[in-house]
Structures are given as C-alpha cells and as structure tokens.
C-alpha cells in the first residue's frame, strides 16, 4: 500500500517511477490486514496529524478511484463497559478534539440507535464520524494503476547500486538492474532487511495479528465497533499477546474481527488462544454473533518500529535512499500522507508537515556500532 501511494504522489509531482516487488501487488502485509482508516484510536501527536492529513487525502482519492476500492466513511464507535472506562474515553476524546478530531459522546440509551445489536449493558461510547475504510488490496492495486508507474513484479531487490561518492544509482534485482537517482524503501515489515541490503539499518520487527472472518451476513454491524481497551493495546509495545476485538461489517457481507497483537517473529502457526479471545470479545460486544460461523482466519505481520511511528525520510547514511516503512497497524490509513511527504522530499518541495518525528535518523542514538559499506 505504501509503495503504491509513494508511486502515485511521486508521479503526480512529475517524477518517473518504477515500482519493484519480489512478489505480487498487495502480496505483503497489505493483503493480510484490514482496511480501517482510523483517527479514533490515535492520541494527539505526530501520528494523529499524519492520520488526519491522510483522511483528507483518502477522501480525495476516493473521488478519482473506482468504487471497487470499497471506500466507506462508516464512522467508528468506541464503547466502554463501565463508568471508569467511560471517563477515560471522555478524557481521551477531549484531547483528540483539540487536535481536530470530531468525536461525539453517545449515551447508553442511544447506543442501539447506532448499532441495534450491541450488548445492552454498556456504559456508553464515542462516535468518530471521520473513521473510514477501504478494501486494502484493491485500494493498493487501483492506486498503483492510477499512478502510471512502471511495475516490475517477481523481482526481488538484492542490493543497491552506488556511485563512487556513495550516492545511490539504482537497485540490483534478481532479474536485472534498474537505474534511478532515488530509491524508496517501502518494503513494509521487510524494510529492515532491505535497509541492511542497502548497507544501512532500520529496526523494523514483525508484530503478528490474526483476523477472524465470518460467513456473509446481512448488515448486523454498521460501524467499526471496538472496546475502549483497544487504544491501550495499540500504544503498548510489549511482546506479549494483546487482543481487543474491532468488529466491523464489510460491503461483501462477512464480519471482520481483528486483531490481535503479539511479537512472535514470522510464525504463522495458529494460536487458539488468540481466536478464543477475539471471539469472546466480539460476542461480548455483539451477542448475536455467538451463533455465527467463522469461516476463515489469517495472520499478518505488521511492520513495527519501537516507538510506534513509521520511518519516513532520508536514510542518515546512504544518500539517495529514502524510507517509507514501519507503519505497524496503520499503514493503510497512513499511506497517502506518507506518499505525499515522500514525493515532496524527492522534489525538494516544502513538506506538508514536519517529518522530524518520523525521520529514520531517530534510531541512530540508541544503536551501537553499525557495519556496512557506507559507514563514514
């Protein structure tokens, strides 16, 4: 998704772009996640700013891309089970409102107006009308096609080409070389590996998530509905398993229940404990789902960076290399803003927002010695 967005905005800026992927379009994490474009789960700060910019850009993109990307501004509904949770939600929303987020408190008696099948005993919630969604694989494929970039699939980048001064001059792939004065690393969870192949370093780690998919249903869930604990899980960096179900209906009928978070490397093995928790939380929110069948579950690996912010900007050691990866559980939502910023950096334009908090050099201090041809 991120690579497609970079290609799209770089193309708009007049650059000629080639997208190289070792696999297929949307074959990475983009094809293994959900397509929530959320502002509701972000606390005030740089990520929220990026999300708000992205939300605007997604609205524009949705006008020019075909309806098949399933863009829908369905809104989010965050619910609390008790008064303490409700109070915490209220504080959180107040901060967000100051940062430009729209949030409306929903009293318990009005919850079922928004979601008729919600459990009856909840303490209330907040409605976030800016939350939207897309079908991520289709969104990436259509955005890439709209970009007019050249696309080379099945071509793995094995190393970067560099001139005598160390500046990047292109990439070497399994099927040949490609020359370009700029290379953007949008390799998602494999962004750390690509950085190493370029002679640099980036601490991207996989954070596994499972999604449960039900049989197709008539619309029983209208918004993205989740319990207040979700926000805490997103912000938590622990390797241990966290689950807080986000429940949503899709245009095609199935209800998606996602997603767990745990750092277990690239292990795809099914965890029944994850499924149990997701199912228990989803059925606690929507008791009608208890009799509904899950027909599928899949795991994906979020590209995680230790401070939960993506890496966007120039590599501190390899001139000509830019990073655009590490978006963890928000890469679909944050892709357009990332693409726009990357295009602005490439053309030397003033970026739309300060990239300081996302700059890849922020990992320098915490790192010890580094090996690589470009160490100076």
């Amino acid at each position: 998704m991120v690579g497609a967005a970079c290609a799209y905005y770089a193309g708009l800026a007049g650059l000629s772009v080639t997208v190289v992927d070792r696999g297929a379009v949307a074959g990475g994490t983009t094809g293994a996640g959900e397509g929530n474009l959320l502002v509701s789960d972000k606390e005030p700060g740089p990520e929220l700013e990026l999300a708000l910019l992205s939300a605007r850009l997604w609205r524009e993109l949705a006008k020019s891309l075909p309806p098949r990307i399933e863009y829908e501004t369905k809104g989010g509904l965050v619910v609390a089970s008790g008064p303490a949770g409700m109070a915490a939600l209220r504080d959180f929303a107040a901060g967000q409102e100051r940062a430009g987020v729209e949030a409306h408190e929903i009293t318990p008696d009005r919850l079922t107006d928004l979601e008729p099948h919600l459990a009856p005993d909840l303490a209330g919630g907040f409605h976030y009308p800016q939350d939207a969604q897309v079908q991520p694989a289709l969104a990436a494929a259509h955005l890439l096609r709209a970009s007019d970039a050249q696309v080379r699939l099945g071509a793995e980048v094995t190393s970067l080409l560099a001139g005598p001064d160390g500046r990047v001059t292109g990439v070497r792939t399994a099927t040949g070389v490609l020359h370009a004065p700029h290379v953007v690393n949008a390799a998602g969870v494999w962004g750390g590996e690509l950085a190493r192949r370029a002679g640099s370093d980036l601490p991207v780690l996989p954070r596994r998530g499972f999604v449960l998919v039900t049989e197709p249903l008539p619309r029983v869930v209208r918004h993205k509905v989740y319990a207040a604990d979700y926000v805490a899980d997103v912000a938590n960096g622990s390797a241990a398993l966290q689950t807080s179900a986000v429940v949503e209906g899709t245009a095609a009928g199935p209800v998606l229940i996602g997603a767990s978070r745990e750092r277990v490397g690239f292990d795809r093995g099914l965890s029944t404990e994850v499924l149990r928790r997701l199912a228990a939380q989803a059925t606690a929110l929507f008791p009608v789902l208890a009799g509904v069948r899950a027909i599928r579950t899949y795991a994906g690996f979020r590209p995680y960076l230790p401070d939960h912010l993506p890496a966007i900007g120039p590599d501190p050691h390899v001139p000509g290399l830019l990073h655009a990866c590490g978006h963890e559980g928000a890469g679909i939502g944050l892709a357009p803003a990332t693409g726009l910023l990357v295009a602005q950096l490439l053309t030397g334009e003033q970026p739309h927002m300060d990239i300081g908090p996302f700059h890849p050099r922020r990992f320098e201090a915490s790192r010890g010695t580094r090996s690589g041809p470009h160490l100076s």
Partner: protein
Amino acid sequence: MPGSATEPYDLAVIGAGCAGLAGAVAASEQGLTVALLDASAQIGGQFHRHPAPALGAARPRAPHHDEAAFDGLRRRLEASDIAPLLGHHVWSVVRESGESWAVHATTGADGEEERPVRVRARALLLATGASERQLPFPGWTVPGVVGAGGAQAMLKSGLVLPGRRVVVAGSGPLLLAVASSLAAAGARVPAVVEASGYLRYARHPHALAANPGKLAEAAVHGSALLRHRVRLRTRSAVTAVHGTERVEAVTVSRLDTRWRPVPGTDRRVPCDALAVGHGLVPQLDLATSLGCATRPTPDATRALALDDLQETSVPGVWSAGETGGVGGAQLACTEGELAALAVAARLRGRPALTGSRRALTLRRRRDRMRAFADAMAAAHAPGPGWTRWLTDDTDVCRCEEVTVGGIREAVTDFGARDARTVKLLTRAGMGWCQGRVCGAAVACLAADGGGAVPSSTDRRPLAVPVPLGVLAALDEAGEAGEPGDTRARCLTPRDA
C-alpha cells in the same frame, strides 16, 4: 472421567475412512489408546458410504465392492475399545506444550447446540481423504450439473439419481465407476466423456502389471458399461452446458493432446444431468496448518510428503490414504496399518516393529500401489489447454460469482500473480467454500497455464467453519462436562 487428570491418548486419528479405520484398529491392536474422529455421522469415509439408517433402505447392491474388507475393519473396530467420535468436525490441530497435540473439534451441529471438544494425543494420524477437483466450463452452474464423486456419494448414501439421462464427464478412473453405478441404478448414461486417452496407461506397464487388482476392477467397470451400452469417448470434454432452469444438453468437443478443443468437432448430446469431475485433490487443511511439507503430484496438485513409514515432515504427525496422494481404498488401508505400526514403534520404543514381516509386506504393497497411482495420475493430469474452453463470462468462483474475465483482469491489469493475490483482488475463493471448489482453477488461471502445479497449498487454518460462540468457549475445554453439556469437553482416554 473427563476433566480430571488429563492423560492424553496415545494416538488421535482424524478421518474414519479406509485409511483412518485401518490405522485406528491396528494401533489399538498394538495396545495404544486411540481416539478416532470423523465429521460424518458414520464410519467408512468416501468409499464405504451407506444409506442413512433412517432411509430404511435394504442393503444397497451395486456400489459396494470391497464389502468384505470393510466388514472386517468394522468387526475389528467393534472388538476394540475405541469409541469413534462421529459428528466431530475437526477445525484445527495445534501442538501443545510438552509432547502432545490438541485436536480441536466442534460437535453437536446436527440439532443440539454446538460445543467445542478438545482431544489430546501424543501422536496424530491425519487421514482426511480427498475431495473432487472441478474445472469450470460454460454452464457448469446450471442446475443438474453435479460432481461425479458427489453423484456416486448421493447414490451410495441416499440412493438418489441426479437425473434420468446422465452424461458423465471429466477425467480419471472414478468416471467409469460412477457411470457403472449410475447405470446399475437405472439411469441412462449416453456417454462417458474422458479428457485424456487411456492409452497412456500403457506407458507404465510395470505399474500396471504389478496391480492385477486394479485391472480386474477396471474390467468389471468396463463390462458393466458394455452391458448398459454406455459409450466411452476419450480425448473429449464437455465444453458447454445448455439450458437455464435445468440441463437440457451438453456440447462434447474432441481435444488435442494438450486438451485444446479441436474446432469443428462439437456435437450436442441431449441429457438432463451431467456428472463431472477431474480427479481428486488431497484434503490438506489440517496438515498444512501444522506445517507439514507437501510434494507436487503427477496430476498437478499437491499431496503430503511422507517418509517410508508414513510420517510427515513434522515429527509425531503421520498420514495415510488420499492425503499422501490419491490411490484408492486398498492403498489407504495398507498405509493406515503401516502408519499404526510406525506410531506404536515410536511410542512404545519398539523399533523392531517397523522391520517386522508384516511391516515389510505392507511397505512392498504400498510401494506397488503408489507407483500405479502415480502412473494413473500422470495419465489424467489436466492438459494446459483446458482454459481454452472458458469464455470471459464463465463463473469460476460460484460463491462470490467471479468470472474468468475478472480473474484475467486481476492478473494482467492489477498485478495478481497467484491464487492468493487473485483472491484478494477479485474475492475468488473468499466465499463459503473458501476456494475448496475453485482453488485449482484459480491457481491455473493465475499462472496462466492450464497444467501448472500450484507452488504451495492454500492455508486454511480453520479446516471447517466454527461458530464464534464455540471459539469463545474454548477455555472451558479443560472443565468437566458430560456429552449433553453445552460447555466444552476435554476428552481423555478414560472418557471414551
């Protein structure tokens, strides 16, 4: 007593077809405690299907060969202390801490409330069989088009005919069996349309000569067909179905050696049903979720890679029957028994068992039948030209109504390169059947070649659909519960 100290079973066998039954019985006779699970309400699997008792049918005649062998297995099962867990749909198997496996099933789907069941065991025997491969063609979704295997299964278990005038088409030895069953049950079979040429078997005279049983079986089907005046058309395929409410006729075209329809050879055959199938595809959902390695088969699908004693690449997990490659009922029984000996040898520390006279006989028999199965598979492998009989508006994925044109567009215009990315961009395979019906066809179209072997098997961590309520109650699986209890049960050897 459930819920008390949970001593695992020695062996959990998943699937009570020929392979699973033979394995379970033999393991029990070696002194192992065995749990035998099957989704169906009866033992016997695909081959030994019986009319549901409620139908009150007399003992069915024609479809049941090998009755004696099956009766033998059934008697040995009754004599053992195995209480088969029927109606148990296994949705996942996971490794537990320690040296055991947890088999997760859901049961009670037929009437009472569904509930989770967990069975723990020190070794696993996967004997989940195979399902029929379908290759689409224009009109294959018209009512009256049924799977060839499905038609036979219907006949065996319910004694119903799919129509009165039934064309049988596709590829594989099963077609002859299906046609003779249909004819014997009173249907008129105007033609058996086989895409490959049987002559190709002759290329493997050794395998054939070593399998007199197979030849005899083919001869029985052949003479039954002659008796019923059924025409066998080889190197031909049904390339279109006519009728909207119901099948009225089919178009049969000659094929060249690459399975491309030969222009000008179309002929219309009136009929009211079509039974069609292109061989069987091993059912590997549970195995691939466990990480078991697979191998390509000569008929362009994938089967489990097994060692000489039926063990998969995952230590502690064995497999027998169609999961290791489609080969018929006798091979399945042989492999099941061999696997049981290997499991007993491992768990009881008796390596000599696998070198015993019995084991050597079983291995020889297995090797001979496997060689034959491979020869047969090679003869019936889909030719790359089959995609030529598709039109852009032919449905490939019936659940999500995805057409050939939609899939081709995803590949050429949007960068899909395999079944998974085609699915993501078109929804082909995302519906109720999860690609179990259309997967083979989608993989071929994605690779843009008819005979391409998929490079990996689909991952379906949920082997069968599971109600969310059942998943949510999983942690109660350790608690006590009786069969009628709506809470989960954890079965231990003393339960069963």
